[in-house]
C-alpha cells in the first residue's frame, strides 16, 4: 500500500469534498474559488464536481461574503468562506467579530453560527505588506471564535473536517508557503478528524521545548534535525489550535526540559504565543524553568517586499538553531 503524500492544497480540497458529500448543508463561497479554482488553487476542481450552487463565486466584498455566510449559518447551512489573503479579513471584521462571534451568546445560546473562515496567511511569496500578515492573534483575542493553524497537509485535512463539524465560527489560518509543499506525513484517504484544542507533541528531546505554529512547526522540526547531530535535543509541540489552547503537553514537557522557546511568524509585540509564555509564568510549570523563555517571532515591522528583507523579517531555521543552541549552552 503506497502512502499518499499530498500538498496542503490537495488535503484541504479533499476535506471540503468529503464534508460536502457527507452533508448537503456544506457549501463554499469566496472570490475566484469557482471556475478559477481559487487564488492558490485550493478549491481546484470542486466547482466542476459540486456545481455553482455549492461552490459559489462572489463579488469582491469580504464584508458581504462573511455577512452572507453568517446569515446562511444561522439558517441551518454550514458555509466555508475562503478569503484570498487573510489581510482582507480586516474588511470583514464587523461580521466576524461583532456578528459571528457574538450571536450565539446574545440570544442565550438559542442560535449557532457553524461557519468556517479559511484564509491564506503569512509571508514568503513576495506579496508585500498588505498580503503577507499573520493575524491569528486578532482572532484569538475574541471570545466566541476558534482559531486553527494547520502545520501540514495531514493536520490540515483532519482539522478542517473538525472545524466544519464545529457549531462555532472557526478561523482557519493557512500558511501560503505550505500550500504547495508535500508534508512529512502521509494523508489517509477518506474522512478522519483531529479534535480542536489538542496539542501535538511531534518529537521529544530533553534539552528544550519548542512551541511553534503553522509554518514554524516544520522549521522547528528541521532545526531539531540539525541540532540532534550536535547533541542538542528538542521537543517540538504544535498547539494546532490557539483558541482553545491546550497547555497540558506544554507544561508536561517543560517539566522534563526546563527550557521553553516559542516560535511564530507574527510580530513579537502582542503576538499570540506571548499567551503561552504568560500561562507558563502564571501556571504550574514556572518552578521547572532553568532559563529565561526564548521568544522567536517576526520583527515589529510591516513585511518588506524585497525578498532578502522579507526573509529576514521572520524566523528561519537557522534562527531557531542558533537561539536554541545558545539557551541550552548558557543555562544549565
Amino acid at each position, binding site marked *: 500500500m503506497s502512502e499518499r503524500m499530498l500538498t496542503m492544497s490537495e488535503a484541504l480540497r479533499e476535506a471540503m469534498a468529503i464534508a460536502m458529500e457527507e452533508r448537503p448543508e456544506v457549501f463554499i463561497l469566496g472570490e475566484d474559488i469557482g471556475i478559477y479554482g481559487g487564488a492558490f488553487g485550493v478549491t481546484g476542481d470542486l466547482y466542476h464536481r459540486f456545481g455553482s450552487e455549492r461552490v459559489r463565486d462572489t463579488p469582491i466584498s469580504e464584508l458581504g461574503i462573511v455577512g452572507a455566510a453568517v446569515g446562511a449559518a444561522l439558517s441551518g447551512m454550514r458555509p466555508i468562506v475562503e478569503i484570498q489573503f487573510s489581510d482582507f479579513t480586516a474588511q470583514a471584521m464587523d461580521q466576524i467579530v461583532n456578528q459571528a462571534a457574538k450571536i450565539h451568546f446574545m440570544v442565550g445560546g438559542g442560535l449557532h453560527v457553524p461557519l468556517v473562515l479559511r484564509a491564506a496567511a503569512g509571508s514568503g511569496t513576495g506579496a508585500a505588506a498588505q498580503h503577507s500578515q499573520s493575524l491569528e492573534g486578532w482572532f484569538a483575542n475574541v471570545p466566541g471564535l476558534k482559531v486553527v493553524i494547520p502545520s501540514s497537509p495531514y493536520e490540515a485535512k483532519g482539522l478542517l473536517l473538525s472545524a466544519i463539524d464545529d457549531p462555532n465560527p472557526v478561523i482557519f489560518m493557512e500558511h501560503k508557503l505550505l500550500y504547495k509543499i508535500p508534508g512529512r506525513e502521509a494523508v489517509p484517504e477518506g474522512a478522519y478528524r483531529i479534535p480542536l484544542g489538542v496539542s501535538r507533541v511531534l518529537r521529544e528531546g530533553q534539552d528544550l521545548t519548542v512551541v511553534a505554529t503553522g509554518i514554524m512547526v516544520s522549521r522547528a522540526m528541521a532545526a531539531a534535525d540539525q541540532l540532534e547531530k550536535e547533541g542538542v535535543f528538542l521537543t517540538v509541540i504544535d498547539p494546532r489550535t490557539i483558541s482553545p489552547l491546550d497547555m497540558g503537553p506544554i507544561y508536561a514537557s517543560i517539566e522534563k526540559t*526546563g527550557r521553553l522557546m516559542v516560535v511564530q511568524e507574527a510580530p513579537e509585540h502582542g503576538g499570540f504565543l506571548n499567551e503561552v509564555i504568560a500561562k507558563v509564568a502564571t501556571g504550574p510549570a*514556572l*518552578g*521547572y*524553568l*532553568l*532559563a*529565561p523563555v526564548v521568544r522567536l517571532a517576526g520583527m515589529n515591522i510591516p513585511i518588506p517586499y524585497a525578498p532578502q528583507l522579507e526573509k529576514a523579517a521572520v524566523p528561519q531555521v537557522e534562527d531557531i538553531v542558533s537561539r536554541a543552541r545558545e539557551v541550552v549552552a*548558557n*543555562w*544549565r
Partner: protein
Amino acid sequence: MSNFEYAVIMPKMSMTMEEGELLGLRVAVGDAVKSGDVLFDVATDKIDMEVESPADGVVKEIVGQVGSTMAVGAPVLILLTETQVMSFDFNAPAPSIVADVPVEIKNFHSPEVAISVAPISAPPVLAPIATIKAVPKAREMAKDRGIALSSVKATGPFGTITFEDISQPHISGANDSRKAANRKMVASALEKTRSIPQITLTRFRAHASAFIEEGSAHLLSTWARILRQNPHVNISTITEKPHDGVGIALIMESKYGLALPVFADPDLKHGSELTAWIRETREKATRGKVPIEMLSGATASIFDFSHTLINSAIPLLLPSHTTALAVGAPDAEVGKSAITLTVDLRYCDALEAAALLDQLINSL
C-alpha cells in the same frame, strides 16, 4: 491528643558558648506563633541574636527570667505545637521540664522511651529575594532544601544562579542537616537492636495493587489482625507487656528523611478508610508534619517497597518492636514479590515465625 509540648531552649550559637543572657521576650503566654517568628532575644559573649520558633504553636509557659543568665540547653519557654519531628528519639532522655508534663499518648509504654524533637538548626537568614537572581528551578530547590541563595555562587548570564550552581555537591541546606540528624537518630536506634537474637524469613507471593496506599493498607490490616491473635508477638520488648491494641509503623519518605508514623488498630478500619488515612499521612510527611500521636505505640514495622524496583529487603527490628516486615516489588520474570519477616527470637521461635509468615501470605 493533637498537641505536643516542646521546650525552646537557650541555643548554642558558637563553639565556645556555654551560657547566654535572656535579653527579652517577644511573646507572652497564650500567644499563637508561626514557625520562624522571633520568640526571644539572647546575648552571648560574642553576639546578640533572635531565637525563632521552630514550629507553629501556642506559647504555653515561660520558664526563663528576663535578664538572667541561663545555661545552653536550659528551657526558656514551652511551646504547645503540632510536631515537625519525623521519628522517635529513642535515645535522648526527656528534658526535665517536659517530663513533668503528663504524657497522654495511647499505648506509650516504655518509661525509657521519650519523645523529643530532632535538633532543628536555625533557619538560614535569607537575603531579600530581589537582590539575588536565580532561575525558578533553583529557587524551588533552595526552598525545598533550605539553602540560602546568598550562599550560592552565580555563574549564569547576568549573574544569575543557575540550577547547576545550586546543585553543586558542597552546597547544603538547613533541611539537609535536619535530614542528617533524623538519619542519625534512626541509625542509632537500629544500633541498639543489632544485638537482639533474630531471624529473617522470606516467602514469595503474587502481589499487585494499583496504588501503593492500597497495598500498604491491605498489608497493615492483615498483619495487625494476625498480631492481635498472637499477643505474645504484639508486645513491647521494653515493658514485656502485651499491647491492648495493635500499632504498626509504616515506614515512609518525609520532607526530613524517613518517617515512622504508627497506625493504631488498622485492622479495625475499613479498607478505603485506612487507604485514605495512609495517603493523608503520607502527604503530611511530605510537608514535614507527622502528627505526634502517630509517633509511638508500635510493636511492628512495615517497609513497603512494592512500588519501587526493589524486589526484596531485609527488615531490621526497631527498638521495642517484636516484628518487622518488608515487601518487595514483583520480580519481572517470576511476577511474584518477596515478603520478608524479621522476628525477635526472645519472643517467638523460628518455626513459629514461619507459621506467622504463612498465615500472612495465606490471608492476603
